[in-house]
């Protein structure tokens, strides 16, 4: 039985690795997800088989009830969530996993309440509680921020780093007490409570625009918490699957902060986006005027240009305008206009988020260009059509060293011969920074909901 269990867990581990590998290519990605879920079914089903004799009466009830309710909640929310709300959905699923890992750690510690646990199981149990608890609380805050239930702006108070640092020290001290002296329920409860507080205060000061990086990091954390509980429970499957996620999640987090041109440390501790207005009076856009045009003017401009590069952003997603955008692009193509899409790595709110949204509207995969691929083409392009994007085309990232986003790679929309910006209002973008591109003499703005503006443009191009 033990050998069978090891072999089945090994098979599950192989399926997870293959699944991740298949997920790395657009063609096989869906199969990758199926392969990984097959591994999961295998591992879970076999665990139930192994446990079948040892369930207590209460145990079997809570396993069945917990599973059934969890499955219903999981399927319903995953099916119902709008594509635009995907990042916070992933955050909350991740939080659930982290919370489960923390509870597994707590339960294991409680089982030997009173005495101090053996180090080689006690240490990973405490780690699972700490990392899983931070991941849970942090994910909940990330969810609340992205869902805009609390402000996306960084929430800071004086001495924040000091408080967080002290909190971390107290947690470490408690962990030592727990491992070396006793693991009474009081100590465990206080530890769990402090860990949850740290998760909250850790994510609160991070701005909404940086949430994807945070979610990715918390995802990796949950993986590590799961691996830690694997050590505690002596379970190969937990260790391998948790470590895989921990390692790949770390790589992904690095890639994401690189895409924003910032170090991870800066993302986590920089309270980015807190300063709303640039301090330099000279380059500040305040007082400058913008040029707004009618849909008819802009429709004509688009219809008679030779090449158009579309820069989609989160505003497009919020307005559910991707289908209208596709219609406009089709119309232009039929008139012989060359249409491409420039996708910034962090367009939307997660890397690749925009690709998912445009794929939903059947935009051909071949027209989606990544930043490095298309940035040199803007110079020879007649119109850059910016739809609901802001920070990713802000020249301040290139030109003004004082700006918060200085150094972030941007799309060179400002180098196109004309720039058309569809925008809801003059509010600054998610990062909270003004954009001088709006005040450029080659720029025309069309205010309004992205979907409505696009529909108007479609009508205007038809009659042009």
């Amino acid at each position, binding site marked *: 039985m033990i050998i069978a269990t090891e072999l089945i867990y090994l098979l599950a*581990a192989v399926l997870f*690795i293959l699944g991740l*590998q298949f*997920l*790395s*290519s*657009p063609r096989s990605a869906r199969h*990758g*997800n199926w392969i990984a*879920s097959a591994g*999961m079914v295998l591992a*879970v089903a076999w665990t*139930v088989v192994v*446990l079948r004799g040892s369930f*207590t009466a209460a*145990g079997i009830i*809570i*396993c069945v009830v*917990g599973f059934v309710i*969890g499955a219903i*909640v*999981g*399927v319903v929310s*995953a*099916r119902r969530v709008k*594509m635009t709300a*995907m*990042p916070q959905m*992933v955050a909350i*699923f991740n939080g*659930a*996993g982290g919370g*489960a890992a923390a*509870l*597994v750690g707590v*339960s*294991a510690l*409680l089982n030997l309440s009173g005495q101090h646990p053996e180090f080689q199981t006690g240490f990973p149990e405490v780690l699972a509680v700490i990392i899983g608890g931070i991941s849970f609380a942090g994910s909940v805050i990330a969810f609340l921020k992205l869902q805009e239930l609390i402000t996306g702006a960084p929430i800071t108070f004086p001495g924040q780093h000091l408080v967080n640092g002290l909190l971390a020290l107290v947690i470490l001290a408690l962990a030592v007490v727990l491992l070396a002296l006793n693991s009474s329920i009081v100590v465990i409860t206080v530890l769990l409570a402090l860990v949850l507080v740290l998760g909250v205060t850790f994510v609160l000061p991070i701005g909404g625009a940086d949430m994807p990086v945070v*979610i*990715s990091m918390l*995802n990796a954390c949950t*993986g590590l918490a799961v691996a830690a*509980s694997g050590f505690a*429970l002596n379970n190969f499957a*937990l*260790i391998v*699957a948790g*470590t*895989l*996620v*921990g*390692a*790949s*999640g*770390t790589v992904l987090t690095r890639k994401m902060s690189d895409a924003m041109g910032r170090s991870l440390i800066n993302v986590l501790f920089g309270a980015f986006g807190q300063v709303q207005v640039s301090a330099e009076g000279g380059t500040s856009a305040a007082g400058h005027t913008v040029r707004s045009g009618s849909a008819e003017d802009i429709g004509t401009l688009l219809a008679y240009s030779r090449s158009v590069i579309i820069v989609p952003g989160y505003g497009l997603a919020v307005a559910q305008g991707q289908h209208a955008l596709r219609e406009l692009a089709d119309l232009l193509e039929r008139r012989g206009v060359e249409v491409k899409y420039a996708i910034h790595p962090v367009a939307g709110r997660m890397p690749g988020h925009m690709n998912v949204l445009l*794929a939903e509207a059947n935009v*051909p995969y*071949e027209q989606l260009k*990544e930043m490095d*691929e298309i940035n040199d083409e803007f110079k020879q392009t007649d119109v850059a059509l910016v739809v609901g994007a802001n920070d990713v085309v802000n020249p301040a990232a290139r030109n003004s060293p004082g700006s918060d986003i200085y150094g972030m790679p941007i799309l060179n929309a400002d180098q196109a011969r004309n720039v058309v910006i569809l925008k809801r209002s003059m509010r600054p973008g998610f990062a909270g920074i003004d954009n001088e591109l709006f005040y450029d003499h080659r720029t025309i703005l069309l205010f309004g909901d992205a979907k409505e503006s696009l529909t108007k443009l479609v009508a205007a191009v038809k009659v042009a």
Partner: protein
Amino acid sequence: MSEQTVVLFTYFVLTAFIGFEVISNVPTILHTPLMSGSNAIHGIILVGALLIAANAQTSLQIVLGLLAVFMATVNVVGGFVVTDRMLEMFKAKQPGGEKGKEQ
């Protein structure tokens, strides 16, 4: 450290290398589905939750076990379903007659 722990630690280290390696060539467009897919994989904590919940006797153990199984199931089931929904949209539509594939 017991021999058993050393063996487990070996798995841990080797798997970490696989984890670094296996996704290093992922194109940007798949980052979101990949994050979501790997998010579902750490739902394996359901196995741990079941191991803990199976032996529950005291009311505290019952509450903790129930919560752990519930949360782990949400993670794993929701994670895979939502990933599949994202990837559904990447289905190949080359036959649609798009001319030049970029290189």
